[in-house]
């Protein structure tokens, strides 16, 4: 889908007038929906500029920026110092960082699961290596109707997704590992689809992917602390414990088109789209 979108954009670029400019934008799968919504809206603002958006993951976008094959890299994690140094070494260009929004990682379960809240510790007990929560009854004696054996089915992500790494950092611990035997799906969409159909399952993804088919849990920092549900407000005021910044990176002195686009992202028009796509605009 993402691939076709960029293909169509490329095809459009091919047959229009020669002064048509294409901005290459690639990276995080978490941001790709937002970046595409922006690109579509931007076409109304500046029809002569096309933006080719593709996903592939934060790492993919950043390495493409280092290699100089894209204009803007999307990333759901800050660029590492060594990556910046490599970019500098490769093409002598300074990296510019812009925080384009916030994303709250929602933890969700099947609607038949009576559990409405979890603490970070309990999440670590479920997901982390050495955690003892194997059945739902290990979490405050919960019984999930329709779940055979009351077994917890952990839905996770493939090991190099930005979402996986962020979840590990916040929930499991930076140096720790996930328990083996989780379902390592290949996208946020798939995680939601699976949990929607599986009473035993628990999963996580960016807030923007949530649907009515799953219950987003209220998350507390510690066992006795009050829990916070993921929402626009709680992500903005940073009370929601699992929220993170989303970045766009450009290299060196970008072309005027890219510059204009990066400026436009900060306007109210773009912020409205951020909210509509399920993400959180940067607090002003």
């Amino acid at each position, binding site marked *: 889908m993402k691939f076709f979108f960029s293909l169509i954009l490329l095809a459009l670029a091919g047959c229009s007038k020669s002064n048509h400019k294409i901005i290459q934008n690639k990276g995080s799968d978490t941001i790709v929906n937002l970046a595409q919504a922006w690109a579509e809206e931007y076409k109304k603002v500046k029809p002569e500029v096309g933006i080719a958006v593709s996903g592939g993951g934060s790492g993919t976008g950043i390495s493409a920026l280092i290699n100089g094959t894209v204009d803007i890299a999307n990333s759901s994690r800050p660029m590492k110092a060594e990556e910046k140094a490599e970019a500098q070494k490769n093409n002598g260009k300074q990296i510019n960082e812009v925080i384009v929004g916030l994303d709250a990682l929602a933890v969700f379960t099947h609607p038949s699961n009576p559990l409405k809240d979890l603490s970070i510790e309990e999440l670590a007990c479920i997901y982390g290596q050495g955690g003892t929560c194997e059945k739902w009854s290990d979490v405050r004696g919960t019984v999930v109707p329709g779940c055979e054996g009351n077994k917890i089915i952990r839905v996770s992500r493939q*090991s190099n997704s930005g979402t996986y790494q962020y979840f590990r950092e916040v929930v499991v611990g930076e140096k720790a590992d996930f328990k083996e035997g989780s379902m390592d799906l290949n996208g946020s969409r798939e995680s939601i689809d699976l949990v929607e*159909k599986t009473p035993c399952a628990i999963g996580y993804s960016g807030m923007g992917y949530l649907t009515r088919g799953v219950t987003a849990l209220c998350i507390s920092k510690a066992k006795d602390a009050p829990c916070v549900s993921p929402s626009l407000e709680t992500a903005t005021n940073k009370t929601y414990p699992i929220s993170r910044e989303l970045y766009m990176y450009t290299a060196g002195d970008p072309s005027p088109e890219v510059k204009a686009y990066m400026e436009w992202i900060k306007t109210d028009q773009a912020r409205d789209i951020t909210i509509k796509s399920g993400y959180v605009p940067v607090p002003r």
Partner: protein
Amino acid sequence: MERRLARPRIEAMEWRQRKTTKPWSEKLIEGIIRLCGMSCIFLIFAILLFISKEAYPFLVGKFEASEFFFSKSWNPSSVANVHYGILALIAGTLAVTFLSMLIAVPLGLASAFYISEFCSPRAREIYKVLVEFLAAIPSVVWGFIAIMMINPMIISTFKVPIGLNVLNASLILALMSIPLIVSVGEDALRAVPETYREAAEALGATRWEIATRVLLPAAKNGLMAAALLGVGRALGETMAVLMATGHSVQIPKSIFDPARTLTATIAAELGESPKGGEHYQVLFAIGLVLFLISFAVNVTADYLIRGKRRKR
């Protein structure tokens, strides 16, 4: 006896004659065809060379056969404990391929027999189109069907906690390889000369007897090839099995356990592993393992077919 000996000589003479008067365009076409044939061999070696080249630094460096082949811990992106053990992945691949073939080969060959021998010519055309249509469904769509339809069905039918497992993936893979088995199998049956059927019918054989006692032995090699193509399809599929197995690192103990295959691991992780890094090299080493597995399957099959032929 006389005629048999005389014939090749005449043919050879004709051939020589033709050869001297061959127009240049025919030479050109012959050359192109030869090149096409050789490019296939060349490509196989190029692929092998490429995979080996990328995997080489790992194979001569950190590679330890006992860890690589016999550890069931696969954790490439861990900060503290990086493990590259592919035992669970091999087990997953074998389990899924085996079970899917258990479903697909009998079903596929049976429908090949039905389409080729038992149904009316009009129905045959319709069935062939439908079966080929089945082959045109993209694998992501199969994966989606696995998650959204088969997963809940398995959960409610078998009362298991999760429906993404070996059984689910095998069903999907079976559905994906059946079209291939049917069309190749059907071709093999069609290739049996009509005189065989007529002769059998003249001896008073029923249709069932013709199918099992005449056509099955006559088309055996072709049917075997059909089954093998199915195995290749099942072994090599990535996206659908990624979604249908649950992509979970563990050795499946029953058909209701999630699993993970070698191909799906490469598909999921290669895109984001830094080029030239250790993880990247290990993924290419897995590619090499897959290459060897499919090579072994093909050689075994070749041996089986040829061994049988020699006996005859």
